[in-house]
Protein backbone atom coordinates (compact mmCIF):
# COMPACT_ATOMS: atom_id res chain seq x y z
CA UNK A 1 0.00 0.00 0.00
CA UNK A 2 2.86 2.30 0.93
CA UNK A 3 4.58 1.93 -2.40
CA UNK A 4 1.32 2.79 -4.15
CA UNK A 5 1.05 6.07 -2.21
CA UNK A 6 4.69 6.89 -2.95
CA UNK A 7 4.17 6.17 -6.62
CA UNK A 8 1.03 8.29 -6.71
CA UNK A 9 2.80 11.12 -4.91
CA UNK A 10 5.67 10.90 -7.38
CA UNK A 11 3.31 11.03 -10.33
CA UNK A 12 1.52 13.98 -8.81
CA UNK A 13 4.74 15.96 -8.36
CA UNK A 14 5.54 15.28 -11.99
CA UNK A 15 2.13 16.37 -13.26
CA UNK A 16 1.42 19.38 -11.07
CA UNK A 17 4.19 21.81 -12.10
CA UNK A 18 3.44 21.03 -15.72
CA UNK A 19 -0.24 21.80 -15.26
CA UNK A 20 0.52 24.98 -13.33
CA UNK A 21 3.00 26.19 -15.91
CA UNK A 22 0.62 25.40 -18.74
CA UNK A 23 -2.62 27.01 -17.60
CA UNK A 24 -1.95 30.79 -17.71
CA UNK A 25 0.21 30.57 -20.83
CA UNK A 26 -2.38 28.44 -22.50
CA UNK A 27 -5.17 30.88 -21.68
CA UNK A 28 -3.06 33.77 -22.99
CA UNK A 29 -2.38 31.94 -26.22
CA UNK A 30 -6.16 31.55 -26.60
CA UNK A 31 -6.45 35.35 -26.51
CA UNK A 32 -3.90 35.51 -29.32
CA UNK A 33 -5.84 32.94 -31.34
CA UNK A 34 -9.05 34.91 -30.86
CA UNK A 35 -7.49 38.16 -32.06
CA UNK A 36 -5.96 36.49 -35.11
CA UNK A 37 -9.15 34.59 -35.99
CA UNK A 38 -11.24 37.77 -35.80
CA UNK A 39 -8.95 39.39 -38.37
CA UNK A 40 -8.07 36.58 -40.75
CA UNK A 41 -11.18 34.48 -41.07
CA UNK A 42 -14.16 34.87 -43.33
CA UNK A 43 -17.34 34.62 -41.29
CA UNK A 44 -20.94 35.72 -41.31
CA UNK A 45 -23.63 35.42 -38.70
CA UNK A 46 -26.14 36.98 -36.37
CA UNK A 47 -25.22 38.21 -32.92
CA UNK A 48 -27.04 39.68 -29.97
CA UNK A 49 -25.67 42.71 -28.19
CA UNK A 50 -26.99 43.10 -24.67
CA UNK A 51 -26.32 46.13 -22.53
CA UNK A 52 -27.85 46.24 -19.07
CA UNK A 53 -31.40 44.99 -19.49
CA UNK A 54 -31.78 45.81 -23.19
CA UNK A 55 -30.66 43.88 -26.23
CA UNK A 56 -30.32 44.32 -29.97
CA UNK A 57 -29.76 41.85 -32.79
CA UNK A 58 -27.26 42.51 -35.59
CA UNK A 59 -25.85 40.72 -38.60
CA UNK A 60 -22.13 40.70 -39.35
CA UNK A 61 -20.18 39.74 -42.48
CA UNK A 62 -16.38 39.67 -42.31
CA UNK A 63 -14.08 39.01 -45.25
CA UNK A 64 -10.32 39.00 -45.72
CA UNK A 65 -8.68 39.46 -49.12
CA UNK A 66 -5.39 40.78 -50.52
CA UNK A 67 -6.47 44.36 -49.76
CA UNK A 68 -7.09 43.50 -46.12
CA UNK A 69 -10.23 43.27 -44.01
CA UNK A 70 -13.75 44.14 -45.13
CA UNK A 71 -16.60 44.06 -42.70
CA UNK A 72 -20.21 45.10 -42.48
CA UNK A 73 -22.50 45.10 -39.45
CA UNK A 74 -26.19 45.81 -39.79
CA UNK A 75 -28.48 46.32 -36.79
CA UNK A 76 -31.67 44.34 -37.31
CA UNK A 77 -33.82 45.79 -34.51
CA UNK A 78 -35.17 49.32 -34.31
CA UNK A 79 -34.10 51.91 -36.85
CA UNK A 80 -31.77 50.58 -39.58
CA UNK A 81 -28.13 51.36 -38.88
CA UNK A 82 -24.90 49.96 -40.25
CA UNK A 83 -21.15 49.98 -39.77
CA UNK A 84 -18.94 49.41 -42.78
CA UNK A 85 -15.27 48.90 -42.14
CA UNK A 86 -12.28 48.28 -44.37
CA UNK A 87 -8.54 48.34 -43.76
CA UNK A 88 -8.44 52.08 -44.37
CA UNK A 89 -11.78 53.40 -43.15
CA UNK A 90 -14.69 52.84 -40.82
CA UNK A 91 -18.06 54.54 -41.22
CA UNK A 92 -21.23 54.44 -39.14
CA UNK A 93 -24.37 55.17 -41.13
CA UNK A 94 -27.38 56.38 -39.12
CA UNK A 95 -30.25 57.13 -41.53
CA UNK A 96 -32.59 57.95 -38.67
CA UNK A 97 -30.39 60.87 -37.64
CA UNK A 98 -29.28 61.55 -41.24
CA UNK A 99 -25.74 61.23 -39.96
CA UNK A 100 -22.65 59.43 -41.12
CA UNK A 101 -19.50 59.32 -38.99
CA UNK A 102 -16.26 58.52 -40.79
CA UNK A 103 -12.76 57.80 -39.56
CA UNK A 104 -9.90 57.18 -41.96
CA UNK A 105 -6.51 55.71 -41.32
CA UNK A 106 -3.76 58.26 -41.35
CA UNK A 107 -0.28 58.99 -40.11
CA UNK A 108 1.67 56.43 -38.24
CA UNK A 109 -1.08 54.78 -36.34
CA UNK A 110 -2.04 51.26 -37.20
CA UNK A 111 -5.65 51.05 -38.17
CA UNK A 112 -7.74 49.89 -36.61
CA UNK A 113 -5.86 49.25 -33.41
CA UNK A 114 -6.37 45.68 -32.30
CA UNK A 115 -5.80 43.47 -29.34
CA UNK A 116 -2.24 44.27 -28.34
CA UNK A 117 0.43 42.03 -29.81
CA UNK A 118 2.03 41.70 -26.40
CA UNK A 119 -0.22 40.18 -23.78
CA UNK A 120 2.14 40.93 -20.91
CA UNK A 121 -0.01 43.82 -19.69
CA UNK A 122 -3.06 41.60 -19.53
CA UNK A 123 -1.42 39.07 -17.22
CA UNK A 124 -0.29 41.90 -14.92
CA UNK A 125 -3.77 43.30 -14.53
CA UNK A 126 -5.98 40.21 -14.76
CA UNK A 127 -5.97 36.67 -13.40
CA UNK A 128 -6.49 34.63 -16.54
CA UNK A 129 -7.51 31.00 -16.77
CA UNK A 130 -9.29 28.50 -18.95
CA UNK A 131 -12.88 27.64 -18.08
CA UNK A 132 -15.16 24.89 -19.28
CA UNK A 133 -15.72 23.81 -22.86
CA UNK A 134 -19.31 24.71 -23.70
CA UNK A 135 -21.59 25.09 -26.67
CA UNK A 136 -22.30 28.47 -28.28
CA UNK A 137 -24.30 28.95 -31.51
CA UNK A 138 -24.19 25.19 -32.06
CA UNK A 139 -20.39 25.01 -31.83
CA UNK A 140 -17.94 23.79 -29.22
CA UNK A 141 -16.33 26.71 -27.48
CA UNK A 142 -13.51 27.12 -24.96
CA UNK A 143 -14.24 29.54 -22.15
CA UNK A 144 -11.49 31.94 -21.04
CA UNK A 145 -11.98 33.81 -17.76
CA UNK A 146 -10.27 37.11 -16.96
CA UNK A 147 -10.65 38.39 -13.41
CA UNK A 148 -9.42 41.91 -12.64
CA UNK A 149 -6.73 42.24 -9.98
CA UNK A 150 -8.10 45.59 -8.74
CA UNK A 151 -11.34 47.59 -8.78
CA UNK A 152 -10.32 49.77 -11.75
CA UNK A 153 -11.37 47.32 -14.45
CA UNK A 154 -14.15 44.92 -15.34
CA UNK A 155 -13.93 41.16 -15.58
CA UNK A 156 -14.45 39.20 -18.81
CA UNK A 157 -15.67 35.80 -19.85
CA UNK A 158 -14.85 34.88 -23.42
CA UNK A 159 -15.81 31.85 -25.47
CA UNK A 160 -13.73 30.93 -28.53
CA UNK A 161 -14.65 28.34 -31.13
CA UNK A 162 -12.39 25.32 -30.52
CA UNK A 163 -11.17 24.76 -34.10
CA UNK A 164 -10.76 28.30 -35.45
CA UNK A 165 -10.41 30.35 -32.25
CA UNK A 166 -13.11 32.81 -33.37
CA UNK A 167 -14.70 34.70 -30.47
CA UNK A 168 -18.30 33.49 -30.25
CA UNK A 169 -19.37 35.13 -27.03
CA UNK A 170 -18.05 37.81 -24.72
CA UNK A 171 -19.35 38.88 -21.34
CA UNK A 172 -18.31 41.90 -19.31
CA UNK A 173 -18.91 41.63 -15.56
CA UNK A 174 -18.75 44.18 -12.77
CA UNK A 175 -17.21 43.63 -9.32
CA UNK A 176 -20.41 41.97 -8.07
CA UNK A 177 -20.32 39.48 -10.94
CA UNK A 178 -23.33 41.09 -12.65
CA UNK A 179 -23.34 41.03 -16.46
CA UNK A 180 -23.18 44.58 -17.75
CA UNK A 181 -22.62 43.82 -21.40
CA UNK A 182 -22.71 40.79 -23.64
CA UNK A 183 -22.04 39.96 -27.27
CA UNK A 184 -23.08 36.50 -28.42
CA UNK A 185 -23.44 34.86 -31.79
CA UNK A 186 -26.74 33.04 -32.14
CA UNK A 187 -25.77 31.73 -35.54
CA UNK A 188 -22.43 31.89 -37.37
CA UNK A 189 -20.82 30.39 -40.46
CA UNK A 190 -17.04 30.27 -40.33
CA UNK A 191 -15.00 30.05 -43.54
CA UNK A 192 -16.17 29.84 -47.15
CA UNK A 193 -16.22 32.52 -49.80
CA UNK A 194 -17.92 35.85 -49.21
CA UNK A 195 -18.80 38.11 -52.13
CA UNK A 196 -17.56 41.72 -52.08
CA UNK A 197 -21.20 42.75 -52.46
CA UNK A 198 -21.96 41.47 -48.96
CA UNK A 199 -19.58 43.93 -47.30
CA UNK A 200 -20.61 47.05 -49.25
CA UNK A 201 -22.85 49.67 -47.61
CA UNK A 202 -26.53 49.05 -48.26
CA UNK A 203 -28.31 51.96 -46.64
CA UNK A 204 -28.90 54.66 -49.23
CA UNK A 205 -27.84 58.23 -48.53
CA UNK A 206 -30.01 60.82 -50.22
CA UNK A 207 -30.28 64.55 -49.69
CA UNK A 208 -28.67 66.58 -46.95
CA UNK A 209 -26.78 64.52 -44.38
CA UNK A 210 -24.60 65.47 -41.48
CA UNK A 211 -21.14 64.07 -42.21
CA UNK A 212 -18.75 63.92 -39.27
CA UNK A 213 -15.10 63.28 -40.13
CA UNK A 214 -13.11 62.29 -37.10
CA UNK A 215 -9.76 61.64 -38.85
CA UNK A 216 -7.09 62.44 -36.36
CA UNK A 217 -3.52 63.68 -36.62
CA UNK A 218 -1.20 61.91 -34.25
CA UNK A 219 0.88 64.24 -32.12
CA UNK A 220 3.87 63.74 -29.82
CA UNK A 221 3.35 63.34 -26.10
CA UNK A 222 5.31 66.47 -25.19
CA UNK A 223 3.28 68.55 -27.66
CA UNK A 224 -0.04 67.77 -26.08
CA UNK A 225 0.27 70.23 -23.19
CA UNK A 226 -1.57 67.86 -20.86
CA UNK A 227 -0.51 65.29 -18.36
CA UNK A 228 -1.76 63.05 -15.57
CA UNK A 229 -1.04 63.90 -11.92
CA UNK A 230 -1.42 60.39 -10.54
CA UNK A 231 -1.62 57.64 -13.16
CA UNK A 232 -3.84 54.61 -12.56
CA UNK A 233 -1.79 51.46 -12.08
CA UNK A 234 -1.80 49.28 -15.16
CA UNK A 235 -3.09 51.93 -17.59
CA UNK A 236 -0.50 53.49 -19.84
CA UNK A 237 -0.76 56.19 -22.50
CA UNK A 238 -0.92 54.55 -25.93
CA UNK A 239 -1.44 57.44 -28.27
CA UNK A 240 -2.44 61.12 -28.59
CA UNK A 241 -4.44 62.34 -31.56
CA UNK A 242 -5.89 65.74 -32.41
CA UNK A 243 -9.22 65.20 -34.12
CA UNK A 244 -12.44 66.99 -35.01
CA UNK A 245 -15.62 65.65 -33.39
CA UNK A 246 -18.31 67.40 -35.41
CA UNK A 247 -19.99 70.80 -35.36
CA UNK A 248 -20.75 70.89 -31.64
CA UNK A 249 -17.27 70.06 -30.49
CA UNK A 250 -14.56 71.58 -32.62
CA UNK A 251 -11.07 70.07 -32.40
CA UNK A 252 -10.41 67.81 -29.46
CA UNK A 253 -7.23 66.35 -28.06
CA UNK A 254 -7.77 62.61 -27.77
CA UNK A 255 -5.57 60.66 -25.35
CA UNK A 256 -5.87 56.88 -25.24
CA UNK A 257 -4.91 54.82 -22.20
CA UNK A 258 -4.96 51.02 -22.12
CA UNK A 259 -4.25 48.18 -19.71
CA UNK A 260 -3.81 45.68 -22.55
CA UNK A 261 -7.52 44.83 -22.73
CA UNK A 262 -9.69 47.73 -21.57
CA UNK A 263 -9.10 51.27 -22.83
CA UNK A 264 -9.96 54.78 -21.71
CA UNK A 265 -10.20 57.80 -23.98
CA UNK A 266 -9.77 61.30 -22.62
CA UNK A 267 -11.04 64.12 -24.86
CA UNK A 268 -9.97 67.68 -24.10
CA UNK A 269 -11.67 70.48 -26.01
CA UNK A 270 -12.37 74.18 -25.53
CA UNK A 271 -15.67 74.57 -23.68
CA UNK A 272 -18.33 76.32 -25.75
CA UNK A 273 -22.04 76.96 -25.61
CA UNK A 274 -22.67 73.99 -27.87
CA UNK A 275 -20.78 71.42 -25.83
CA UNK A 276 -21.40 73.17 -22.49
CA UNK A 277 -24.83 71.57 -22.24
CA UNK A 278 -23.09 68.20 -22.01
CA UNK A 279 -20.79 69.27 -19.20
CA UNK A 280 -22.52 67.41 -16.44
CA UNK A 281 -20.80 64.88 -14.21
CA UNK A 282 -21.13 61.23 -14.94
CA UNK A 283 -23.07 59.04 -17.33
CA UNK A 284 -23.12 55.37 -17.99
CA UNK A 285 -24.19 53.37 -20.98
CA UNK A 286 -23.77 49.66 -20.62
CA UNK A 287 -20.10 48.85 -20.29
CA UNK A 288 -19.00 52.35 -21.30
CA UNK A 289 -18.83 54.91 -18.52
CA UNK A 290 -18.49 58.62 -19.22
CA UNK A 291 -17.27 61.33 -16.85
CA UNK A 292 -17.00 65.02 -17.69
CA UNK A 293 -15.47 67.94 -15.87
CA UNK A 294 -14.31 71.47 -16.58
CA UNK A 295 -10.63 72.33 -16.23
CA UNK A 296 -10.40 76.10 -16.64
CA UNK A 297 -11.81 76.88 -20.09
CA UNK A 298 -11.54 73.23 -21.17
CA UNK A 299 -14.09 70.46 -21.16
CA UNK A 300 -12.52 67.12 -20.22
CA UNK A 301 -14.46 63.98 -21.15
CA UNK A 302 -13.15 60.59 -20.06
CA UNK A 303 -14.85 57.42 -21.27
CA UNK A 304 -14.10 53.78 -21.58
CA UNK A 305 -15.24 50.23 -20.97
CA UNK A 306 -14.12 50.46 -17.34
CA UNK A 307 -15.95 51.19 -14.04
CA UNK A 308 -17.05 54.77 -13.40
CA UNK A 309 -14.43 55.24 -10.66
CA UNK A 310 -11.67 54.66 -13.23
CA UNK A 311 -12.81 57.29 -15.76
CA UNK A 312 -13.55 59.67 -12.90
CA UNK A 313 -10.09 59.23 -11.37
CA UNK A 314 -8.35 59.68 -14.70
CA UNK A 315 -10.38 62.78 -15.65
CA UNK A 316 -9.77 64.30 -12.21
CA UNK A 317 -6.04 63.68 -12.60
CA UNK A 318 -5.76 65.49 -15.96
CA UNK A 319 -3.98 68.82 -15.78
CA UNK A 320 -2.28 71.22 -18.19
CA UNK A 321 1.50 71.03 -18.14
CA UNK A 322 4.06 73.59 -19.29
CA UNK A 323 5.43 72.68 -22.69
Amino acid at each position, binding site marked *: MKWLLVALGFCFTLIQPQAMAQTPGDALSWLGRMAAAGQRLNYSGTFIYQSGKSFETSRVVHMMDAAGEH*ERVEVLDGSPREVVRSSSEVRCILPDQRTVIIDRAGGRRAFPARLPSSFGGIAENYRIRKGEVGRIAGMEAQQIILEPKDEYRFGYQLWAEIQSGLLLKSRTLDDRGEIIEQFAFSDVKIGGDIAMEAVRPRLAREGDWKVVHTNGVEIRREESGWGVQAPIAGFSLMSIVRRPLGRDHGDALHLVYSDGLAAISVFIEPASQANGRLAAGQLSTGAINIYKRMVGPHLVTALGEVPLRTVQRLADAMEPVAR
Partner: protein
Amino acid sequence: MKDKLSAFLDGELDDQCVRTVLEEIRCEPILRNEWETYCLIGDVLRGDECVSHDFVDRVMAEIDTAPTLLAPIAKRAESAASAGWRSLMPLAASVMGVAAVGWVAHTLYAEPAGASHVAEVSPRLQLVESQASGVRPVSVTSTAVDPHQEYVFAHQSMTGGGPISGAIQHVRSISEVGQDGVR
Protein backbone atom coordinates in the same frame (compact mmCIF):
# COMPACT_ATOMS: atom_id res chain seq x y z
CA MET B 1 -86.81 57.65 -19.77
CA LYS B 2 -83.15 56.67 -19.35
CA ASP B 3 -82.88 58.35 -15.95
CA LYS B 4 -85.98 56.41 -14.88
CA LEU B 5 -84.31 53.22 -16.04
CA SER B 6 -81.24 54.13 -14.00
CA ALA B 7 -83.37 54.93 -10.96
CA PHE B 8 -85.23 51.63 -11.42
CA LEU B 9 -81.96 49.74 -11.42
CA ASP B 10 -80.99 51.49 -8.20
CA GLY B 11 -84.37 50.57 -6.64
CA GLU B 12 -85.40 54.18 -6.23
CA LEU B 13 -88.76 54.05 -8.07
CA ASP B 14 -92.20 53.57 -6.52
CA ASP B 15 -94.52 50.76 -7.63
CA GLN B 16 -96.49 52.90 -10.08
CA CYS B 17 -93.39 54.05 -11.91
CA VAL B 18 -91.89 50.54 -11.92
CA ARG B 19 -94.92 49.26 -13.78
CA THR B 20 -94.60 52.04 -16.37
CA VAL B 21 -90.91 51.38 -16.88
CA LEU B 22 -91.41 47.63 -17.26
CA GLU B 23 -94.13 48.27 -19.80
CA GLU B 24 -91.84 50.59 -21.74
CA ILE B 25 -89.02 48.03 -21.70
CA ARG B 26 -91.37 45.41 -23.09
CA CYS B 27 -92.53 47.61 -25.96
CA GLU B 28 -89.42 49.63 -26.82
CA PRO B 29 -86.54 47.55 -28.36
CA ILE B 30 -83.98 50.37 -27.88
CA LEU B 31 -84.85 50.67 -24.23
CA ARG B 32 -84.70 46.91 -23.91
CA ASN B 33 -81.12 46.99 -25.27
CA GLU B 34 -80.25 49.70 -22.77
CA TRP B 35 -81.72 47.62 -19.99
CA GLU B 36 -79.68 44.59 -20.99
CA THR B 37 -76.49 46.63 -21.12
CA TYR B 38 -77.22 48.05 -17.66
CA CYS B 39 -77.87 44.57 -16.32
CA LEU B 40 -74.65 43.25 -17.83
CA ILE B 41 -72.68 46.11 -16.28
CA GLY B 42 -74.43 45.48 -12.96
CA ASP B 43 -73.65 41.76 -13.10
CA VAL B 44 -70.02 42.40 -13.92
CA LEU B 45 -69.66 45.01 -11.16
CA ARG B 46 -71.24 42.67 -8.61
CA GLY B 47 -68.87 39.93 -9.68
CA ASP B 48 -71.67 37.64 -10.95
CA GLU B 49 -69.81 37.28 -14.23
CA CYS B 50 -66.49 35.43 -14.26
CA VAL B 51 -64.17 38.26 -15.28
CA SER B 52 -61.30 38.94 -12.93
CA HIS B 53 -60.77 39.38 -9.21
CA ASP B 54 -59.39 42.91 -9.62
CA PHE B 55 -61.92 44.03 -12.19
CA VAL B 56 -63.22 46.98 -10.18
CA ASP B 57 -59.69 48.23 -9.52
CA ARG B 58 -58.92 48.07 -13.20
CA VAL B 59 -62.11 49.88 -14.15
CA MET B 60 -61.31 52.58 -11.59
CA ALA B 61 -57.75 52.81 -12.95
CA GLU B 62 -59.15 53.13 -16.47
CA ILE B 63 -61.51 55.90 -15.37
CA ASP B 64 -58.58 57.63 -13.65
CA THR B 65 -56.55 57.57 -16.82
CA ALA B 66 -59.22 59.28 -18.91
CA PRO B 67 -60.58 62.23 -16.95
CA THR B 68 -59.66 64.78 -19.62
CA LEU B 69 -61.86 62.97 -22.11
CA LEU B 70 -64.95 63.09 -19.94
CA ALA B 71 -64.71 66.52 -18.33
CA PRO B 72 -65.34 68.74 -21.37
CA ILE B 73 -68.39 66.70 -22.42
CA ALA B 74 -69.89 66.90 -18.95
CA LYS B 75 -69.26 70.64 -18.73
CA ARG B 76 -70.84 71.42 -22.09
CA ALA B 77 -73.89 69.38 -21.19
CA GLU B 78 -74.23 71.13 -17.86
CA SER B 79 -74.14 74.60 -19.37
CA ALA B 80 -76.75 73.59 -21.96
CA ALA B 81 -79.30 72.09 -19.62
CA SER B 82 -79.09 70.16 -16.39
CA ALA B 83 -81.71 67.69 -17.64
CA GLY B 84 -79.56 66.92 -20.67
CA TRP B 85 -76.58 66.37 -18.40
CA ARG B 86 -78.55 63.92 -16.29
CA SER B 87 -79.64 61.95 -19.31
CA LEU B 88 -76.04 61.80 -20.61
CA MET B 89 -74.60 60.41 -17.42
CA PRO B 90 -76.02 56.88 -17.68
CA LEU B 91 -75.00 56.82 -21.35
CA ALA B 92 -71.47 57.88 -20.48
CA ALA B 93 -71.43 55.29 -17.73
CA SER B 94 -72.56 52.56 -20.09
CA VAL B 95 -70.01 53.58 -22.70
CA MET B 96 -67.30 53.54 -20.02
CA GLY B 97 -68.56 50.21 -18.73
CA VAL B 98 -68.61 48.57 -22.13
CA ALA B 99 -65.20 50.06 -22.93
CA ALA B 100 -63.88 48.75 -19.63
CA VAL B 101 -65.32 45.28 -20.24
CA GLY B 102 -63.79 45.29 -23.73
CA TRP B 103 -60.47 46.46 -22.37
CA VAL B 104 -60.41 43.85 -19.64
CA ALA B 105 -61.36 41.11 -22.09
CA HIS B 106 -58.66 42.34 -24.44
CA THR B 107 -55.96 42.25 -21.79
CA LEU B 108 -57.19 38.89 -20.51
CA TYR B 109 -57.30 37.08 -23.82
CA ALA B 110 -54.49 38.80 -25.72
CA GLU B 111 -51.79 39.35 -23.12
CA PRO B 112 -48.71 40.04 -25.29
CA ALA B 113 -50.49 42.32 -27.73
CA GLY B 114 -52.38 43.86 -24.84
CA ALA B 115 -49.19 45.10 -23.22
CA SER B 116 -48.22 47.23 -26.19
CA HIS B 117 -51.83 48.48 -26.50
CA VAL B 118 -51.74 49.75 -22.94
CA ALA B 119 -48.40 51.42 -23.58
CA GLU B 120 -49.90 53.28 -26.54
CA VAL B 121 -52.94 54.45 -24.62
CA SER B 122 -51.25 55.88 -21.58
CA PRO B 123 -47.73 57.25 -21.21
CA ARG B 124 -47.97 56.76 -17.46
CA LEU B 125 -48.64 53.06 -17.89
CA GLN B 126 -45.81 52.85 -20.37
CA LEU B 127 -43.41 54.16 -17.75
CA VAL B 128 -44.54 51.57 -15.22
CA GLU B 129 -44.35 48.92 -17.93
CA SER B 130 -40.77 49.72 -18.84
CA GLN B 131 -39.70 49.74 -15.19
CA ALA B 132 -41.43 46.49 -14.39
CA SER B 133 -40.26 44.41 -17.34
CA GLY B 134 -36.92 42.65 -17.35
CA VAL B 135 -35.02 42.24 -20.61
CA ARG B 136 -36.85 44.17 -23.27
CA PRO B 137 -36.32 44.97 -26.94
CA VAL B 138 -35.33 48.47 -27.98
CA SER B 139 -37.98 51.02 -28.84
CA VAL B 140 -38.46 51.17 -32.60
CA THR B 141 -39.38 54.85 -32.56
CA SER B 142 -36.34 56.04 -30.61
CA THR B 143 -34.76 58.80 -32.66
CA ALA B 144 -32.99 60.69 -29.89
CA VAL B 145 -29.55 61.81 -30.99
CA ASP B 146 -26.90 60.67 -28.57
CA PRO B 147 -24.65 63.63 -27.74
CA HIS B 148 -21.77 61.27 -26.97
CA GLN B 149 -21.96 59.30 -30.19
CA GLU B 150 -18.88 60.95 -31.72
CA TYR B 151 -16.86 60.41 -28.54
CA VAL B 152 -17.78 56.72 -28.37
CA PHE B 153 -17.08 56.31 -32.08
CA ALA B 154 -13.65 57.95 -31.85
CA HIS B 155 -12.88 55.87 -28.75
CA GLN B 156 -13.82 52.64 -30.49
CA SER B 157 -11.90 53.38 -33.66
CA MET B 158 -8.72 54.00 -31.64
CA THR B 159 -8.93 51.09 -29.24
CA GLY B 160 -9.45 47.40 -29.34
CA GLY B 161 -12.79 47.80 -27.58
CA GLY B 162 -11.85 45.15 -25.08
CA PRO B 163 -11.89 41.61 -26.41
CA ILE B 164 -14.38 42.52 -29.14
CA SER B 165 -12.68 43.32 -32.39
CA GLY B 166 -13.49 44.80 -35.74
CA ALA B 167 -16.77 46.43 -36.63
CA ILE B 168 -18.68 44.43 -34.03
CA GLN B 169 -17.44 46.72 -31.24
CA HIS B 170 -18.89 49.70 -33.15
CA VAL B 171 -22.33 48.40 -32.33
CA ARG B 172 -21.76 50.31 -29.08
CA SER B 173 -21.40 53.56 -31.07
CA ILE B 174 -24.59 53.08 -33.03
CA SER B 175 -26.66 51.14 -30.52
CA GLU B 176 -30.01 52.50 -29.36
CA VAL B 177 -29.74 50.13 -26.43
CA GLY B 178 -27.81 52.47 -24.20
CA GLN B 179 -29.79 55.59 -25.09
CA ASP B 180 -33.15 54.94 -23.54
CA GLY B 181 -31.96 55.40 -20.01
CA VAL B 182 -28.98 57.30 -18.92
CA ARG B 183 -27.21 58.94 -21.81
